[in-house]
C-alpha cells in the first residue's frame, strides 16, 4: 500500500523564499515499495486510491487540499492554508506500446510516455535519453515536476514549439473521492490511447477538446493531476552562443521574429537566415547608454554520439556561479541606498549576464541544466504579442529606472498555446521578465507588490494587451486583472471547472491565489449556458 506521512506545520515557503505562508498539514505520499512485487500499473492504481482517501479526508474536514511539486513558483499559486501534498516521490514512468494506441491516433507510439505527476524535468529527460528521445522544450532549468510545469505554464524561449503543456496529449486527473472521479482526458480531435489501456488504470475516458484545453493549465485547481501523457521526439542537439549585437537589431528581431536575412556570424557555423530554436535578449535597465544587447541564440542540430569530443562538456562547472554572499551583501547595500542599485547592477553585470562568445553544444537537458541560484529571488514576467516587445520593454525599463529594484530584464519568445488559460496566448508571445534578488519591503526601495502594480499600470495605460506568468510575482489582487488579460476565456475555464468538479470539490481545490484572482467564484447558472 502507498503510504502518506502527515506532518503538522505552521508555515511553508517556496524554493525562492517568497513567503512564508501559513499551513496546517504537510502530506508526503510514497509509493508501495519495489520489494512488494507489485507491477508499476498496480502501484499507480494503488496510490490513486490513497490520493482519493486524502481528498475525502480534506473534504470531511472542510479544508483545502493542494498538490505541490518542487515549489518553484514565486507567486502563492502552489500554496493552500490547510493541506499541502508533496508529490515528488510519485514518479512512475510508462512507455506506450503500439497495441495501446487509439485506432484513430496519428501519434507515433514510440514518442508517447505516461509520467506520474512527481517526475521532475531532469529525471524525465534522463529517462527519455536512455531511449533515444528528448522533451521538445523545458524551462530555463530542470527541477520542476511535470504536473507543476503544466499547471502554471512553464516555458523556455522556443519560438516554434511553445511551453511544456503544449506537448501534453493526455491528462489523468483525480477530481474527487469516488471511483468515477478518476478521469483521463484527451482531445477528441487528437486521440492517443485505447480505452482499454486507460480503463486498466481504473480511469474513465473523456475525449473533448474544450475540456482538455481548459484543464491543461489548470492552476492546480482542476483536481489532482496524477499523470500526464507526453509526446517526446528523437534526441537532438542544441548549439548555444551568446553575443552582443546592436540594440536596434536585437529589438527588430524581437518585434518581427524574422531571421530570414539575418546572419548571427557565429564562428565555425553558417546559421545565416536560419530561424533559431531559441532567441533571448538580455537588457540592463540601468545602462541607458548601452548600444548593444547580449543575445542568446540557440540552434537545433542533428544528434550524434561524439559531440562532446568536438565541443567539450556542455554542463557548466559550479565555480562559474556567482558567490551568493556577495549578492546578498549588494542587496543589503541597495536596501539602504536605493540610488546605488544602478551602479551595483552595472558592477555585477559580468556575473549576472551569460558569458559572451562561448559556444556550447549539448542535449536539451544539458543546455537547460540545474539552476545556479536557489536563494531569495523575485521575478515579474509579462507576456505581450511579440510585435509589442520592444515597446513593452522600453516602458517597463523606464518605470524600473524611476523605481529601481535589484534585477535585470530579459525577453523570451514562445508559440501560442491551445490551453485556455495559457499566458502564451498571442500568436508568438514575448515574455518580458525582470529577475533579481529579493529585498526587504521595510527599507527604502519600493515594495515588490507596489512595483508590480506599477508595471501592470504602465502596460494598461499604454494599451498594450498583456498576460502575466502564473508562477511569478505580481499584484494578483489588481482589480479585474484576470478578466482584462483573458476576457471570455475565463468563463470557458470556469465552465469546465464546474463540469469536472462538484461545488464541494471546487472548495477543496481552491486557495488564496484563486480567491485573489476571482477564479474560485463559480459561474452563475445563466452564464454557464451562454459560454
Amino acid at each position, binding site marked *: 500500500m502507498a503510504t502518506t506521512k502527515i506532518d503538522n506545520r505552521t508555515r511553508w515557503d517556496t524554493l525562492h523564499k517568497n513567503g512564508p505562508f501559513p499551513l496546517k498539514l*504537510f502530506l508526503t505520499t510514497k509509493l508501495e515499495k519495489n520489494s512488494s512485487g507489485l507491477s508499476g500499473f498496480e502501484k499507480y492504481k494503488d496510490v490513486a486510491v490513497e490520493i482519493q482517501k486524502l481528498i475525502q479526508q480534506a473534504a470531511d474536514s472542510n479544508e483545502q487540499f493542494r498538490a505541490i511539486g518542487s515549489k518553484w513558483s514565486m507567486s502563492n499559486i502552489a500554496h493552500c492554508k490547510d493541506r499541502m501534498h508533496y508529490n515528488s516521490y510519485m514518479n512512475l514512468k510508462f512507455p506506450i506500446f503500439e497495441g495501446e494506441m487509439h485506432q484513430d491516433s496519428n501519434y507515433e507510439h514510440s514518442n508517447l510516455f505516461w509520467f506520474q505527476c512527481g517526475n521532475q524535468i531532469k529525471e524525465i529527460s*534522463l*529517462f527519455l535519453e536512455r531511449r533515444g528521445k528528448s522533451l521538445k522544450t523545458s524551462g530555463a532549468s530542470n527541477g520542476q515536476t511535470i504536473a507543476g510545469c503544466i499547471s502554471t505554464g512553464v516555458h523556455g524561449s522556443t519560438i516554434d514549439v511553445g511551453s511544456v503543456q503544449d506537448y501534453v496529449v493526455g491528462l489523468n486527473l483525480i477530481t474527487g473521492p469516488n471511483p468515477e472521479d478518476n478521469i483521463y482526458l484527451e482531445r477528441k480531435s487528437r486521440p492517443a490511447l485505447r480505452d482499454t489501456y486507460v480503463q486498466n488504470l481504473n480511469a474513465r475516458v473523456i475525449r473533448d477538446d474544450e475540456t482538455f484545453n481548459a484543464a491543461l493549465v489548470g492552476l492546480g485547481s482542476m483536481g489532482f493531476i496524477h499523470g500526464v501523457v507526453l509526446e517526446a521526439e528523437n534526441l537532438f542537439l542544441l548549439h548555444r552562443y551568446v553575443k552582443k549585437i546592436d540594440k536596434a537589431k536585437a529589438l527588430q528581431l524581437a518585434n518581427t521574429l524574422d531571421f530570414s536575412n539575418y546572419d548571427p556570424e557565429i564562428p565555425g557555423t553558417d546559421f545565416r537566415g536560419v530561424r533559431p530554436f531559441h532567441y533571448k535578449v538580455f537588457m540592463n535597465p540601468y545602462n541607458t547608454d548601452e548600444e548593444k544587447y547580449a543575445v542568446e541564440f540557440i540552434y537545433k542540430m542533428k544528434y550524434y554520439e561524439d559531440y562532446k569530443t568536438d565541443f567539450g562538456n556542455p554542463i557548466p562547472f559550479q565555480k562559474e556561479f556567482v558567490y551568493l554572499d556577495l549578492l546578498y551583501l549588494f542587496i543589503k547595500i541597495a536596501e539602504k541606498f536605493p540610488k546605488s542599485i544602478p551602479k551595483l547592477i552595472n558592477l555585477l553585470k559580468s556575473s549576472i549576464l551569460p558569458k559572451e562568445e562561448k559556444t556550447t553544444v549539448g542535449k536539451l537537458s544539458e543546455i537547460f541544466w540545474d539552476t545556479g541560484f536557489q*536563494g531569495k529571488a523575485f521575478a515579474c514576467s509579462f507576456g505581450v504579442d511579440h510585435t509589442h516587445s520592444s515597446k513593452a520593454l522600453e516602458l517597463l525599463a523606464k518605470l524600473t529606472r524611476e523605481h529601481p529594484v535589484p534585477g535585470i530584464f530579459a525577453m523570451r519568445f514562445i508559440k501560442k498555446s491551445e490551453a485556455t488559460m495559457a499566458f502564451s496566448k498571442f500568436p508568438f508571445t514575448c515574455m518580458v521578465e525582470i529577475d533579481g534578488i529579493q529585498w526587504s519591503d521595510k527599507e527604502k526601495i519600493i515594495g515588490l507588490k507596489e512595483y508590480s502594480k506599477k508595471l501592470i499600470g504602465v502596460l494598461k495605460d499604454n494599451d498594450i494587451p498583456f498576460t502575466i506568468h502564473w508562477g511569478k510575482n505580481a499584484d494578483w489582487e489588481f482589480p479585474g486583472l484576470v478578466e482584462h488579460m483573458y476576457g471570455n476565456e475565463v468563463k470557458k475555464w470556469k465552465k469546465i471547472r464546474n463540469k469536472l468538479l462538484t461545488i464541494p470539490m471546487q472548495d477543496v481545490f481552491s486557495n488564496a491565489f484563486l480567491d485573489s484572482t476571482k477564479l474560485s467564484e463559480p459561474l452563475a447558472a445563466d452564464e454557464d449556458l451562454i459560454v
Partner: protein
Amino acid sequence: MRLLKITLCFGLVWTMTSCYSVRFQVENGQWEPKDTEGGDPYYSGYYVRTVQKKVVFKKLTTGADYFNISDCESGALHTVEYRNTFGGILLNLVTFGGRKKVNVKYVCIKENSM
C-alpha cells in the same frame, strides 16, 4: 598588547572554523528531493543527509573499513560533500593522525528515477 591578544584570539577562533568543502556530483542522475526550509541555498530542495560521526579513529580513514550508507533507497549517490576545518586538521595533527574529524553530507539518487 591587549589589542594584539584579542586579535590573536579572534584569529585563532576564525582559523578553527575556517573550512573548505569539496563536492562530487553525478551528472546523469536525479537528486532525491525534499521540501526544505532554510539551510544552504545550494541544497535548497535537496534531501541532504549527514554522516553522524564527528571524530573517528585512524583505522576508519585509512584501513579497509567503510562508512556504510544504508538509507539511500535507490542504492545510489548523487552528491557527496566532504568538509574540512582548520580545527579538524589541528586535531589530526596533535593526535599524530590518531583522530580525524569527519564531516560528510550526501544526497541520494531519487528512487525509481532511473
